[in-house]
């Protein structure tokens, strides 16, 4: 005689299946989004594409305004931030932080500034302008690393 499965067991199994499906959907979608953003980073910024900059005089200092066009081909909001440390007294060059939040399927522009007080001293000496770049798939994952913006500045502007 076939024994009927208890109702409690059916509920427990249903909850288990739902948890498993939700987990697979979340992890799968995060991996897909990360893969798409990785492809964007590797392909869409080749040769400086998507990066535009202008320079202006700010008193005796030179300020470069950098605009980076960031497409979001993933499934979650993409937050990109350039964080600059507090300007140290006497430092010749520093950057000003910028951040952008890009919705899925949209494009956003990240804007940040690099200021050089004495350009000739900067080009002939210490060209270190460290900034922390953070890329986040909100709210699931993030990646951050330190980059020397001075390496990307050329004489005559960025």
């Amino acid at each position, binding site marked *: *005689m076939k*024994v009927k*499965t*208890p109702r*409690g*067991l059916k509920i*427990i199994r249903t*909850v*288990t299946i739902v*948890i*498993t499906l939700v*987990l697979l959907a*979340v*992890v799968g979608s*995060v991996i897909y989004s990360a893969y798409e953003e990785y492809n964007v980073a590797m392909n869409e910024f080749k040769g400086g594409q998507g990066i535009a900059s202008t320079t202006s005089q700010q008193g005796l200092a030179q300020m470069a305004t950098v605009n980076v066009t960031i497409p979001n081909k993933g499934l979650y909001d993409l937050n990109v931030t350039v964080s600059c440390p507090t300007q140290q007294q006497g430092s010749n060059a520093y950057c000003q932080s910028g951040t952008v939040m890009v919705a899925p399927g949209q494009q956003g522009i990240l804007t940040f500034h690099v200021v050089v007080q004495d350009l000739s001293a900067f080009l002939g000496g210490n060209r270190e302008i460290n900034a922390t770049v953070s890329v*986040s798939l909100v*709210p*699931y*994952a*993030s*990646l*951050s*690393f*330190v*980059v020397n913006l001075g390496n990307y500045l050329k004489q005559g502007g960025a």
Partner: protein
Amino acid sequence: MAYQVKPFSKRVVKAIWTTVLNVAVWIIAPYYLGTFLASVAPSTPLAIPTFVYEFGIIITVLEAAAVLTEGMAVSVPFVSATSLLMAYYLWLATEGGRIAVSAGGTNIVIGFQVLVYILMIPSLWGAIKAPMVYMVRRRAAQQAPPSAPP
């Protein structure tokens, strides 16, 4: 779903297979993963062999004990303890979802705390589910009509 304890011989065979599988999943695979991670993320616990062995052995022993006592009340703490330990292992192995990696002379920090919380949910649910399943099956067996004599 009758409440039955399988014959001892079947449970022993299943426990042996479970032990082999768990050794592969919780000791051998993490060991090789840790060997690779030691070069890019040396601070991660998986790069420490004793961490892998300790957790791997304890999880394997608990899983084997759970299978050997399958169907009995004493299996519930083994199953729940295994599930809780798996969740804790995941938390420690991923350093709470924040790993520092060295690549190409650059230090990269990968943050995935929310993902780790989500990945821990099945194990935590397993710890809660074990006593619930046991109680439901026991109640169903007690309420089931006695089988008719041949």
